């Protein structure tokens, strides 16, 4: 006898957001990337559309990162050169987007000027044709300064700019609005703050289709379950027509997973945990996998070997 499948009827879907702009659209990207737009829980093709495949943005820094050797060695000699680094991510590792993090802007570090930051953004834009995500350092004030400059210098490129947070969103939201970019709204694993922030940004005049949610995930073994449930609730909210939760979600998978001891400790230090190489790769890839199962649209990743695994996992799950 045939079994009557349970197909949920949702009243709405995840909002669709377009990143980047081609020359016809006022930018210089060779192609744009669309995220969101899904009308089902992740990968349940029997009940709705997975409008756009989840995408992977690879991390590029303006300074040589303090990552473990197992990751760094996969990049060869490009780590001091953001343009070449970005190009390698796209050409060799198949990154859909580049996530440029300007750690060097930090006043306590290299203390790069806004002009210098802008120059690096331009360099990366020139090196790759994919859309760009640009975020600053750990200093709010400095970030406001550099983001204003970057937003202006890259007018029309439709960058995905970050980060707007509850206590610091006005300046970057204004910059995104005036210069036609999209914005990352970050909230600390709290569905109410997430909605509130989206409302505040929206009230400033930035349309909902220009906002992406960063729920501030935790890595595998370090709080991933909180992100898992918050994101699952947000996705259900989006499908139930809660407009202020309907934006696609971006997850900083590479950063969070590689902060964990399990992604860095050698087998000599922890013989019980097995070899670092595969463990480190899986720590990042599995963080991504869990986030995909609860509705991540953009995964920000670091380790090329983990990126490869996740690309295959996404392809498998999108295969109707």
């Amino acid at each position, binding site marked *: *006898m*045939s*079994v009557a*499948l*349970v197909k949920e009827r949702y009243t709405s879907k995840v909002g669709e957001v377009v990143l980047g702009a081609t020359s016809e659209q006022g930018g210089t990207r060779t192609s744009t990337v669309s995220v969101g737009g899904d009308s089902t*829980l992740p*990968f*349940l*093709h*029997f009940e709705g559309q997975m409008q756009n495949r989840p995408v992977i943005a690879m991390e590029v820094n303006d300074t040589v990162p303090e990552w473990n050797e197992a990751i760094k060695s996969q990049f060869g000699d490009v780590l001091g050169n953001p343009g070449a680094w970005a190009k390698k991510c796209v050409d060799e590792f198949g990154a859909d987007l580049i996530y440029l993090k300007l750690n060097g802007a930090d006043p306590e570090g290299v203390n790069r000027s806004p002009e210098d930051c802008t120059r690096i953004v331009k360099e990366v834009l020139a090196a790759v044709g994919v859309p760009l995500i640009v975020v600053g350092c750990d200093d709010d004030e400095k970030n406001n300064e550099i983001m204003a400059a970057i937003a202006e210098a890259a007018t029309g490129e439709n960058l995905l700019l970050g980060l707007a947070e509850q206590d610091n969103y006005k300046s970057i939201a204004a910059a995104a609005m005036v210069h036609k970019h999209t914005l990352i709204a970050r909230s600390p694993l709290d569905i109410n703050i997430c909605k509130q922030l989206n409302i505040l940004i929206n009230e400033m005049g930035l349309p909902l289709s220009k906002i992406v949610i960063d729920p501030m995930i*935790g890595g*595998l*073994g*370090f*709080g*991933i*379950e909180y992100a*898992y*449930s918050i994101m*699952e*609730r947000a996705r*259900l909210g989006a499908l139930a027509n809660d407009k202020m939760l309907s934006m696609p979600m971006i997850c900083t998978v590479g950063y969070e997973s590689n*902060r*964990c*001891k*399990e992604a860095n400790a050698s*087998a000599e230090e922890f013989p*019980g*945990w*097995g*070899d*670092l*190489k*595969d*463990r480190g*790769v*899986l*720590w990042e*890839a*599995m963080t991504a*996998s*869990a986030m995909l*199962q*609860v509705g991540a649209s953009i995964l920000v990743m670091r380790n090329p070997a983990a990126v490869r*695994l*996740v690309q*295959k*996992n996404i392809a*498998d*799950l*999108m*295969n*109707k």
Partner: protein
Amino acid sequence: MALTGLEIYKQLPKKNCGECGVPTCLAFAMALASGKAALDTCPHVTAAAREALDSASAPPIKAIKFGNGSVMGDENVLFRHDKTFYHPTTLLIRVSDALSDDELSQKLEEIKGLEFDRVGLHYSLDGVAVVNESGDAARFEKVAGIVAANTEKSLLLLSSDPTALKAALVPLASRKPLIGEATEENYEAIVNLAKENSVPVIIKAEGLDALNDLVVKAQALDYKEFVLDAGSRNPVETLANLTQFRRLSIKKKFRPFGYPVIAYTSKTEPLDEIMEASVYVSKYASAVVINTSAKAHVLPLMTLRQNLYTDPQKPIQVEPVLHSVGDVNENSPFYITTNFSLTYYSVEGEVEASKIPSYILPIDTDGTSVLTAYAAGKFEPEKIVDAMNKSGIADKITNKTVIIPGYVAVISGKLAELSGFKVVVGPRESSGILSFTKTL
């Protein structure tokens, strides 16, 4: 899913004959509802009513136990935020009887190593799936015996040949293995074998419709210790099936699917395989059978499982006693934080990375983070001083300095006054500890 007395009453004959020992059907229904009577004492209850009552009172997904303490099923929600998931996915490593004796002992050695300690928790592998690929009943029996002799873990014996399965099962019946698989072709023999030996059995068919038919037929053999397999062997189809099993059993109380479900990985590369398994652990598999048994592959999967099966209402806590990191001495820095496992281990990780031997005292905040604890009055100076006194820290360090989380800088004055310690305000987030230690 307990029924109320009234719901039960509707199904009774309403003769009020008193033969059940209480004067009326209603009184009997009330006694049933509170578990003080058994339905069998009413001689007049119809078969249809019995069926209805049995199934209405059963949990949406039956709990199936096997082997060494493995429990599958008995879940009540679709999303962990609705309540919690109860029975962590049973993880089994596949061992083929086509392996040579050497390969077999190597594999078993590797499986023995699958015990992990991290963040104060211990993770263990659940069991081993012995698969009959040799086509040889004697070999299957022998390998099952070797595996059983080399592990205390739960066993799954897998063969579609009833003779081979029987040969392997009978000597191991006391281990209560899960067996399989009963298919359209062999289900009578295999379900009866399971029934005779009181072990649970996997019912397998291709697709949900065929599986439904087969489960109904198998149930007619008057046995219900089942685990289900809808035959899919690729991620997207398996995800869809697992979702339907869970939705049908919980939302629709669809009885034929009210059993635990098992999934098998299909990928040949171990890392791909673990990624595939992570989908099934996330979404509803009661048990997953994987091939790789390398520690580096299994640890991430077990970590994911542990994370997702944590009760969202009951945060994991560490013991609120003084912990030391490294080879501490009287000049070691002394940190306080909360006993929320995640907070504590984030701090511990960073302190460890600083390579400065240090003391950390987690305050008992019922497993809440610093901000939440402070807001709830669980991170007050009085309480902290009390914990410091109990820990004997004053006798362990000569610098008499306590480092507090940046978020509670406001308690500095009071804490200094009450404790007599110098109070240093540390970073807000544990990620700031490394650079903070450079200023010490």
